[in-house]
């Protein structure tokens, strides 16, 4: 399959070429694009209202102030944006494998995972990104956090490493379709797990703390990385390690995806 090693610049160049086609084809369905964007905004507004209804009446939850909770919420929204934008084609994988159309991806002289995911770029993700960034800024302002180069660098680095965890979970969940039929429910479950990310892990009991840290790493989507910014005096080791652990989780999910793909032998007619 993968005959030659290609450089990073080759992949970046080809990525923009492929997604340009996808964006062009989407723009031709203008109504769909506008309605989808409105849908995205509506979902975010409703999520925000729900959050406000639950928490605004109480000064703090489990030692976490309202604005700190809001920060976690915004952080988790931004951290799932790369998954939404870059890996949206994972949702179609099940159908491609089931119908046998997946075979068309197997004959390209570039990385299979890369080629498959680059085919779709979900522009709607930007709506979520802006909403999340707005929430972070709003919370940042109310928490009177300092604004300086180091803080912003920290924010960017830890947002990126948080996003790796969500990407890893979605990729691994999508890859299950190579082994199991009708794996939609697994992917849907892994998407739902993001709802757990916006709460501080301290509200769970030890068993679930363990599960959400090491088995289903949702606590890394907002809680651990945010500690670096919110509570700089009590940052646990796991927070500092989150870029490395994120990389590891993503690498494992990628390997799983590729292993599944190499198992694929075309069931189509």
């Amino acid at each position, binding site marked *: 399959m993968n005959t030659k090693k290609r450089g990073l610049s080759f992949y970046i160049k080809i990525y923009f070429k492929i997604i340009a086609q996808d964006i062009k084809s989407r723009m031709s369905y203008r109504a769909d694009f506008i309605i989808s964007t409105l*849908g995205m905004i509506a*979902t975010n*507004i*409703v999520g925000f209202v729900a959050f406000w209804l639950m928490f605004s009446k109480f000064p703090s939850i489990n030692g976490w102030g309202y604005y700190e909770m809001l920060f976690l919420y915004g952080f988790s929204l931004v951290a799932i944006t790369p998954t939404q934008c870059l890996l949206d084609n994972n949702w179609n994988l099940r159908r491609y494998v089931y119908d046998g159309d997946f075979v068309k991806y197997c004959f390209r002289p570039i990385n299979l995972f890369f080629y498959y995911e680059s085919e779709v770029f979900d522009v709607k993700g930007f709506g979520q990104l802006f909403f999340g960034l707005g929430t972070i800024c709003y919370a940042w302002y109310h928490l009177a956090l300092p604004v300086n180069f180091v803080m912003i660098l920290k924010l960017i680095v830890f947002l990126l490493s948080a996003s790796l965890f969500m990407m890893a979970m979605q990729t691994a969940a999508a890859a299950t379709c190579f082994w199991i039929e009708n794996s939609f*429910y697994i992917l849907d479950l892994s998407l739902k797990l993001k709802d757990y990310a916006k709460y501080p892990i301290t509200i769970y*009991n030890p068993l679930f703390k363990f599960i959400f840290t090491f088995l289903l790493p949702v606590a890394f989507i907002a809680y651990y990385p945010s500690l670096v910014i919110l509570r700089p005096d009590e940052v646990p080791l796991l927070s500092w390690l989150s870029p490395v652990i994120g990389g590891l989780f993503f690498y494992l999910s990628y390997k799983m995806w590729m292993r599944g793909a190499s198992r694929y032998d075309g069931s189509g007619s």
Partner: protein
Amino acid sequence: MNRFKKYFALTRAGIIECVNYRMALVVMVFGNLLYLTLIYFVWKAIFASSGSDVVNGMTFETTMIYLVLATALFNFMEMYIVWEMGRDIQSGKIALNLLKPMKYKDYLFWSVSGSFVVNFVFTFIPTFLIVMLVTKGTIAIGINLIYFVIAVVLAVIINYEIDFIIGTVCLYTESIWGINVMKQAVVTLLSGATIPLAFFPEKLRTVIEYLPFRAIYDTPLTILLSRNPDAGMVAEKLLISLAWAVVMSLISHLFWHISIRQVTVNGG
């Protein structure tokens, strides 16, 4: 009778299809349990920090029962009708379904009814029993169970009619995803599926009173949780639900008949 025979044939096919994907069932039950733990811990933290046992007239126990059963109801009522219709429209399969010797609306309802049955047996009943056992008698067992069942039947109808109306919109827009997420966001919030309506501010609640969405989750659950339900109150709630069911099915019927002339199917 003959009519029902063909409907039940569809139900049976749906049941067989669901049971065939056993793995999906396992994941669904597991995911449901995980979700319930999340709800449990979050609301426990909220009640712990409020400093009192009763928040907005609800105790931790009633809030939990409300939300757990709302999730269970959601799991069996959400049949992804809008997705189904959208896909039918986009793929052109709708042309074939329109030719079937049955109204499209009936056909769609009865073909998802199989998963209604499976989800009811595999998620709703176990959840309900667990909740009853764990909370030991917070749910009164009596006439309210019968009212609850009636309210759920009406809720299923209203939910289906709303989905069908939104699905009909897809005939015009040819957009599925956006319409569907918008509907889901609005309905889950305003029906009380994620947060009990008692937690909403007074003004917002007044608005919600006049919308059909509360009949889907809030009405059945409030009836179930009321001890010694007052017959007048229950009758009023059920009549409102019934009225909404009639109104929504009229709207969806008319809207569909006007819109179906719109269909353009790409050949292929």
